């Protein structure tokens, strides 16, 4: 039995449909009205959990799930100690620094950065030797520059339409992001064939 942590939401649905085609089906999961979190198909030897996207790394690192699907942003932010077996090439977006088009970096003061990803922001500016003041928020990051809470934001940009609507632009790209197939280090040893087979299924 292989335990798979799927992120709730569109990415999870997308990955499930790939796995379904590859033979890891579990139709119950498609019932959107269901509040169930665990879906099992004994015959196919697979069990899915639907978890918050930011938690996938934790489930896999601590072995509750053998494998999982997590965005590169989550892996960079939380650095779970897992194997990163495959870039799925879906859920593509960019981690960016964004702000007003006329943003001027006053190097006389620490830069105020609002973000959901403090670790990524700190690493990015740390490499440049730029002193920053992190403002950790949990949502509506775009509001921070508007209210002058922050000078810039560090956030995921998919189409850029949210930025546009708030008169913000991408100033710098930090790192491209896509969904990754990750595995617990010990599960990889004990369920080696199962995990390699699933990776192969996802590769196609």
């Amino acid at each position, binding site marked *: 039995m292989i335990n798979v942590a799927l992120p709730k939401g569109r990415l999870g649905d997308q990955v499930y449909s790939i796995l379904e085609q590859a033979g890891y089906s579990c139709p119950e999961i498609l019932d959107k009205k269901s509040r169930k979190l665990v879906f099992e198909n004994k015959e196919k030897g697979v069990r899915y959990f639907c978890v918050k996207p930011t938690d996938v790394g934790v489930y896999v*690192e601590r072995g509750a799930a053998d494998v999982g699907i997590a965005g590169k942003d989550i892996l960079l932010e939380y650095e779970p100690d897992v194997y990163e077996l495959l870039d799925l090439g879906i859920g593509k977006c960019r981690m960016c620094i964004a702000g007003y088009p006329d943003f001027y970096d006053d190097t006389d003061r620490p830069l105020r950065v609002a973000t959901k990803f403090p670790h990524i922001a700190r690493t990015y500016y740390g490499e440049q030797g730029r002193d920053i003041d992190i403002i950790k928020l949990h949502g509506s990051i775009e509001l921070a520059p508007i209210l002058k809470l922050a000078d810039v934001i560090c956030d995921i940009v998919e189409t850029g339409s949210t930025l546009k609507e708030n008169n913000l632009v991408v100033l710098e790209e930090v790192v491209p992001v896509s969904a990754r197939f990750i595995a617990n280090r*010990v599960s990889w*040893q004990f369920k080696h064939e199962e995990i390699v087979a699933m990776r192969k299924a996802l590769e196609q």
Partner: protein
Amino acid sequence: MSLEEKLNRLFEGFGYQKFKMSKFEEYDLYALNKDFLTSSQLITFTDLDGKLMALKPDITLSIVKSTTAPRKVYYNEMVYRAKDHHYREIPQAGVECIGPVDAYLEAEVIALAANALETIDKNYILRISDAGFLKALLEDQQIDEQYQAFILDAMDHKNADYLRALEQEGVLNRQLCSTLINLIDLYLPLSQGAKEVKNLVRTPACVQMMDHLQEIAKILKGFEVENRIFLDFSLVNSMDYYNGIVFQGALSGIPFTVLSGGRYDRLPQKMGKSFGAVGFAVYMDIVENQRHSRKSFDGDILIRYQAKDTAVQVARIVQTLRRQGKTVRAISDGADWDSSRWRKVLSVKEAGKEAGL
């Protein structure tokens, strides 16, 4: 027998001697050898004579420091380390073989590690690599030091796509990239794996390392442990510490590495001793915390006796039940005992029936 006792018996069976030590050392030992510690965070205090002391974050340093002649020792001690932003007391067991280390002694320590894992759970896996292998391969291909770190990181995470990205950036040539990806995916029993690697990599230093691993695999056959030992190139942690064979152990059902070890000649050399060294540690905290299923009851039977019950009768029932192998707690009814959960809560009369009296 507790796990600790079982391991002690195993280590003693191979002629290793118990090494017992104080809980603290002079701080200088750690300051001078901080390259050999996983973290520089220590619990320190000042001794009555003004000397700065530290609670031991590591056992190996103390053992090597005190070694003047070749020896085989084992230990079962506490170490004090930062873990999850707090200092923790962590139990650790392990062995060290310090002296003129040769292939037999390396294999013996690996076999001991395999047997230690087997003592805990029959379903174990020990993975082996050589700490110098990837470095030698990358240096042979004249890869920049800065990129070596990225490549090792990719190997550590089995991240083949990152290597492909480095190939596109021109850091790796196509052939080296495909060799490294083959190495990421390689997961074979030691002797078979080493043979396979020799088909992939022709660098003389690398071939020599694989020959050595094949020799070790042969000796491990003599110890009858070879079939649970695999070659795996994702073991790239602590490469500054180890300088040859490295290994890590895992048990089915425990999601973390529970044992790690290898050849570490640099430490004795740094301390001015002309010895080699090989050893390993078992992370007893992880084993103990993860191995057992958690209990859901304090015990089998709770007897509540009242003033009307005779104490002799209660005593008789308790003793009878206990002899039947049950855990029993008798308490006076009405008193406010600490909250606990028992499989059955009985009156004296009911308990008498249960005991068959």
